[in-house]
């Protein structure tokens, strides 16, 4: 038996003991996870610095604050999320208990990504624990330092058998994917997403795929261009452009293009100083392979800002490209790097058409004062999410489901959505063995009369609340009539 098979078997046996189901246990594990983040803050920051060149403050801002928020939200709301959810009754079920009961799925596989190695690997774990599942955590081998820290320290805080961490590369992942899980949660590229989904399909395992895409950013000419460019610059160059929801490219009218370039240039200097290479708060490309990939994308476009690089450090300066068209090299794949192409369009109509000709992205960004324009983009394009007048921040609103559509993924999470995604919402109908007379119309031998009654009961759209109100009103009317007759 392979190591992965053994780990999976142990986790499943641990789940079958039933200990992950009581709410107290889930809360205890969530609180331990929170302690892990606070006590191991230094180790986590150190690992991310070595993986991505991110500063300690950057790590806290972009990885751990969000995680802490999710855990606290789950702890506070768990009782409500896990409670049975009553549903609308009908005439036929008026005396019965009808509800949806959230239940754990069983054993979940969480495959993390390297760009935010802690946030995207542990946030689904919060949902898995909250929903009462066991989970096998497979951090990305590309962010190897973070994976090592996770493997070493997480078992000291969480149940070792229920939540094992499995590190390794492609062979280990493939071995894991041969095993049977009750849900697979994958964050990464569309290419690998297909492989994961196909492996899951063999066992009829449902999946949540958080994939990527090219997220367009449309800047309306009548908007506050200074503020818009600031927010776009921030959103683009955080983590050196290696964010799945980073604005991938800009669409704007030719008349504002030079102003946009100028503003972005100014913001880059403001955020990262004149020499981003030596500046602590500017990151690096994860590895040589991605460095070469991103550099190759610049081919054929004009560099308007930045453009310098240093292969020994995997450093690429914050770069803006112009004279870009739909066919340019930089438009053939998701950039995932600090290159910001600007494509000119004649207006919002052409922008919408441009966006719709391509695969559905994770997010569409619109910068405009005009509410009607924003609503139009919402209605006429499709994407995982839409964010108007800012970048990235919808990720932090736990009430909003976060996920893709089409090529950018399927399923969603964050907050309560993580809980629901990793639960089975089981329909429950509890009837009594009494009142069998009512049921007689359904039993054979079938007669026309029985059919008539059955039609009445099933087809009649009865609003039970209205029935109650009508009954109450009738009673009240009767009482009033009685009083009037008696005393007046």
């Amino acid at each position, binding site marked *: 038996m392979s190591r992965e098979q053994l780990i999976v078997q142990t986790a499943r046996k641990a789940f079958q003991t039933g200990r992950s189901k009581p709410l107290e246990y889930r809360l205890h594990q969530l609180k331990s996870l929170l302690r892990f983040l606070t006590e191991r803050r230094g180790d986590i920051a150190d690992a991310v610095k070595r993986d991505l060149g991110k500063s300690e403050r950057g790590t806290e801002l972009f990885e751990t604050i969000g995680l802490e928020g999710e855990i606290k939200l789950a702890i506070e709301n768990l009782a409500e999320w896990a409670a049975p959810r009553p549903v609308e009754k009908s005439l036929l079920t008026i005396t019965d208990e009808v509800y949806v009961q959230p239940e754990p799925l069983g054993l979940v596989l969480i495959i993390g990504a390297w760009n935010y190695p802690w946030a995207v690997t542990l946030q689904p774990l919060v949902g898995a624990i909250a929903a009462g599942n066991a989970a096998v955590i497979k951090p990305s081998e590309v962010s190897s330092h973070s994976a090592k820290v996770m493997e070493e320290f997480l078992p000291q805080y969480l149940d070792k058998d229920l939540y094992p961490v499995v590190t390794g590369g492609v062979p280990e992942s493939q071995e894991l994917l041969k095993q049977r899980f009750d849900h697979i949660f994958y964050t990464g590229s569309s290419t690998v997403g297909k492989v994961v989904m196909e492996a899951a399909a063999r066992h*009829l395992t449902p999946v949540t795929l958080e994939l990527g895409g090219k997220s367009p950013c449309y800047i309306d000419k009548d908007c506050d261009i200074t503020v818009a460019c600031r927010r776009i610059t921030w959103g683009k160059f955080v983590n050196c452009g290696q964010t799945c929801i980073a604005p991938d490219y800009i669409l704007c009218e030719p008349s504002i293009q030079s102003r946009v370039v100028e503003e972005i240039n100014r913001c880059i200097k403001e955020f990262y100083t004149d020499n981003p290479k030596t500046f602590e708060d500017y990151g690096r490309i994860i590895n040589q392979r991605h460095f070469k990939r991103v550099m190759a994308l610049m081919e054929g476009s004009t560099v308007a800002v930045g453009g310098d690089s240093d292969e020994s450090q995997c450093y690429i300066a914050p770069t803006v490209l112009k004279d870009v068209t739909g066919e340019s090299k930089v438009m053939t794949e998701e950039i995932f790097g600090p290159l910001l192409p600007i494509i000119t369009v004649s207006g919002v109509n052409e922008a919408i058409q441009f966006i719709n000709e391509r695969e559905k992205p994770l997010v569409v960004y619109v910068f405009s004062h005009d509410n009607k324009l924003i609503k139009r983009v919402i209605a006429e394009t499709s994407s995982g*999410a839409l964010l108007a*007048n800012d970048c990235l921040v919808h990720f932090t609103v736990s009430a909003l489901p976060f996920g893709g559509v089409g090529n950018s993924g399927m399923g969603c999470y964050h907050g309560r959505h993580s809980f629901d995604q990793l639960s089975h919402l089981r329909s429950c109908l509890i009837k009594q063995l009494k009142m069998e007379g009512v049921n007689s119309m359904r039993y*054979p031998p079938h007669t026309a009369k029985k059919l008539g009654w059955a039609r009445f009961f099933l087809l009649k759209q009865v609003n039970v609340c209205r029935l109650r109100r009508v009954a109450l009103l009738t009673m009240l009317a009767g009482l009033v009539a009685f009083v009037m007759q008696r005393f007046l």
Partner: protein
Amino acid sequence: MSSPPSPSPDRWFKLRRTRLGEPCLKTYTLECGDLLRRARVAFQTGRTLKEVFRLTQLEAVVRFLDEHECDFVEALARDLHKPRFETVLSELTVVKNEARHAINNLKKWMKPLHMERNLSTTMDECLVVSEPLGVVFIIGTWCSPIQMCLVPLVGAIAAGNCAIIGPSECTAHTAELLHRLIPFYLDNECFHVILSSVNDLPKVVELKFDHVFFSGNREDGSRIAQAAARTLTPVTLILSGKNPCYVDQQCEIATTAQRIAWARFHNAGQSLVAPDYVLCHADVKAQLVEALKYYLMQFYGCDPRKSCSYGRMVNLDLFNRTRDMLWRSGKVVVGGQVIEAEKYIAPTILTEVTETDAIMQKEICGPVLPVLTVISRLMSETSSGSFCANDSILQSLMVALPFGGVGASGMGSYHGRYSFDTFSHRKSCLLRSTRFECVTYLRYPPYEDRNLSLMTWASTVSQKSQGWCQIL
């Protein structure tokens, strides 16, 4: 809105005849590709996005079922020997119910959902907008052919999608009826009916739809899911499995037996939700079997073959499969008669069945009910698609309850609002303004320790509700 245009004439030229003179249609994969392209073009015109269009199509579905009730009853009688009562109730009425529920609630479902706002997002609009996925592929199963094709179709239409429907080839008359009549009721470009054999379905799925809804058995479900994975197509699978039915020693045996008998033997046992086997306490087993025998007599008389309330197996393959399982398992205490020429299997109850018998290895999908005894069993530690106490099947008729499987019985759910949600993408929209930049500046580099403390403090304050940091 004017009535839908009449069907294009070239549909009629694809009719071929079997050697028995029965109609036999087959839509080849190439043709399916063509229909998919037409549906995509129709979707891109944007007409399915309008509420009026969706309402018209839903009303047309109701009219379709009302106006052709007799045709449906006849087609199902020929395919499954289904009694009129069952066709009207469990097929037509259920679909009409779903359609009317969708019509009554469509406006509400289409409205963007405003998410709870809190201190951090008071100045923004947080919405979840339900948008259609595009073109969906609905593959029906044969045991309730109309319900399994048209209930998901109602959800797909309500959510604003175009759809291609593939009813099962096993119920050929019903499939032909849908293929012939749907063009008279629904938009000819947006909705198409194809006839594909189950082996060709993975090829059709690979043409790339935006969602695939499949009902049927596990093996086919797995093949469809794998084909869908190759094009990153989300799926909903409603699969058959072994639905256990536990009878406690403390219950009213007569009513229990009546409800179980009804659930198991309607449609000659061919149902995804019927109880597959009974686990009953040893003390009550004899009583239960006697009661079941009594009610079977009540329902179908001494000779169920002559009863018009009793069905037949859909085809010889299934007949043979069920008969083999029956002959190789346990002991027959009621029924057991089989007539191959009529594909008739009498309502049968088996006892002395062990867990290793043939009949306990796969789902039954026929009128055979094994009764196993258990000494005691804790049923609270189980998982299933749905759960029904003291009755059967009814939970699948409720529009308010999600209907679907878990694990090997499937993924995803539908009925009522859940159908609408299955075929929608719920898009998160966060609409901010470009004012208050004086507050937003705290998040920009260079990162300062004091800014970080401020933000940590602010995000802790707003933890009470569901968002964090407007300052970000």
